[in-house]
């Protein structure tokens, strides 16, 4: 096991979804086949034991990246490589889902839900051993042993998310993909779940791929943050660098939306517009219709990622040094 090789490397991965009308409609109405490019040439790597976060608006493709990494979707192009797992076996990847109400089968007892990965992957033999492991996992996530006999509807949202984490841990994963694990929870419960996840990371040496639209949550968790816009990574930087010195105009827009308790009435840059339809993305930089710094080059050429210090950013304005005109948020 080599600590230097990343546990996960994603190389130029793209994912297209076929959103065409049914065959008969296409033939009769002469409609063409239509594809949505949900993820477009995304590359990143996640070092072992770290937390890599992806942020962006809804529809930017971050959940698709999560499902590509777990293998629930297959890539249209590009490769996903995993490092070597413990004892030479492949890296085990598990996922924590967004909605704790639909991620647990309502007709199964919690004990069976958590035991399912153990049974499917034959990690323990014998019912007594499985039961003991389930109780151990429940204790790990802060639930009681006799909660195993309850049904999911007997729990609150935060407790269900704990069950969901216990199920993910049951298969002894090394990489946990967390798809907005706290966005369906109350703020007070969010903090509990995030602290639980950090504790588990320390205790079990987990690596997280963390997907969220909530920047405060991400700041609490991550080592590295990637900002996605319309299927592309527009900026990638170590967490504190991103928060202190955001480069891309979109990152600044996002950071500007975080409420600040110390300056509640500060002047804020008003930003209009919504993300354009991924069915018909604008030419050039996809952010140009909303970008205050956009010029003709931005409307024509797609910028490439380039490095500014520790940050990789995909922006003509930053590259040309025009970005200083825009006040930094925060």
């Amino acid at each position: 096991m080599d600590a230097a090789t990343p546990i996960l490397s994603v190389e130029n991965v793209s994912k297209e979804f076929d959103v065409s009308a049914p065959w008969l409609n296409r033939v009769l109405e002469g409609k063409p086949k239509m594809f949505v490019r949900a993820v477009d040439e995304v590359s990143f790597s996640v070092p072992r034991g770290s937390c890599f976060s992806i942020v962006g608006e809804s529809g930017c493709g971050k959940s698709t990246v999560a499902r590509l990494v777990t293998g629930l979707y297959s890539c249209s192009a590009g490769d996903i490589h995993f490092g070597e797992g413990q004892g030479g076996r492949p890296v085990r990847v598990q996922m924590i889902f967004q909605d704790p109400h639909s991620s647990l089968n309502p007709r199964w007892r919690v004990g069976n839900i958590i035991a399912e990965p153990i049974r499917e992957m034959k990690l323990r033999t014998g019912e007594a051993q499985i039961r003991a492991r389930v109780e151990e996992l429940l204790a790990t996530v802060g639930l009681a042993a006799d909660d195993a006999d309850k049904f999911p509807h007997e729990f609150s949202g935060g407790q269900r998310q704990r069950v969901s984490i216990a199920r993910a841990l049951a298969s002894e994963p090394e990489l946990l993909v967390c798809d907005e694990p706290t966005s369906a929870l109350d703020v007070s419960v969010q903090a509990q779940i995030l602290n639980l996840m950090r504790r588990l990371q320390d205790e079990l040496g987990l690596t997280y791929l963390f997907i969220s639209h909530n920047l405060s949550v991400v700041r609490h968790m991550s080592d590295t943050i990637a900002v996605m816009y319309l299927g592309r990574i527009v900026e990638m930087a170590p967490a504190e660098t991103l928060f202190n010195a955001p480069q891309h105009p979109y990152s600044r827009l996002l950071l500007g939306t975080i409420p600040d308790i110390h300056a509640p009435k500060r002047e804020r840059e008003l930003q209009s517009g919504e993300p354009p339809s991924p069915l018909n993305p604008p030419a050039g930089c996809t952010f140009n219709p909303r970008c205050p710094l956009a010029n003709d080059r931005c409307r024509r050429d797609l910028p490439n990622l380039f490095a500014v210090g520790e940050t990789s950013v995909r922006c003509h304005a930053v590259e040309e040094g025009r970005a200083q005109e825009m006040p930094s948020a925060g």
Partner: protein
Amino acid sequence: MTELQVPSAAKSQPGRIARFLDSDLWWSFKSSKSAVGAAITLGLVIAAALLAPVLSPQNPYDLASLELWNAELPPIWMEGGQMPFLLGTDVQGRDILSGILYGTRISIFIGLASVVVSLAIGIVAGLMAGFYGGWVDNVLMRVGDVLLSIPIILVAILVSSVAQALLPPELREAGISIVLVLAIAMYSWVQYARVVRAQTMVERRKEYVQASRLVGTPARRLMLKHILPNTLTPVFVTATLNFGLAILIEATLSFLGVGMPPDQPSLGTLIRVGNQYLFSGSWWIVLFPSIQLCILVVSVNMLGDWLRDALNPKLR
């Protein structure tokens, strides 16, 4: 309330029966007069049919027990009525009450069997179509559409008359009820398939199915252990209502003469035979089997209606 709390307080894990008695469904059943009434009626009808050999004064299948001088006796409360023929006799001296009890048995058997067979086909087809989608879905559902576009009586007449022509004579007697079951099932599986497919398409996308997929659960187990239990609620309602429908279809086929033969009469056969004597004044031969058929189907449908409302979250 205290009675209800005892089972859950005594043990942290109440048993299935205790949980059922504590459930909304049981409460809704108890508070619905029509549901309780229908359930009691249906229970009595089924019990009487099951106990037919004990209850009925005569074995209608045993031709030796028929006496022609007992033919066309009116019901017991009319002039000329005789014991033990409570509801009178038909033209061959067969006791109407015994005929009804045995006929109900056959009707219920064919209704139940066709529901079971069509459930089995419909659930498998619906799960496959909803889970795999694509061409599997297209093929299964288009076959179903075609079947549904033909009137069921026509399909059933076709199937049962073709089968009767094909079956060797010695099998015809025994095979006819099985042919009827298959003819009805061939039509009604489509409804179950549609219900299960729609629900499967919803459940398949839910995160608990994806979570199970991630640990390598094979498709068969995903379908049977995760998705199927979550699709069954609407299927039960459809099955209950279709049970009544299946009994009616069987009665119609028997009435038309392609169903059960007169020597193993179902309710429909009894009505057909009795219908010929209606205008000769022997109204009891046709009236009593018809009443029984009505009671049976109405009570099944009332139970089905109650179940549909009780399981519909929007009506709670």
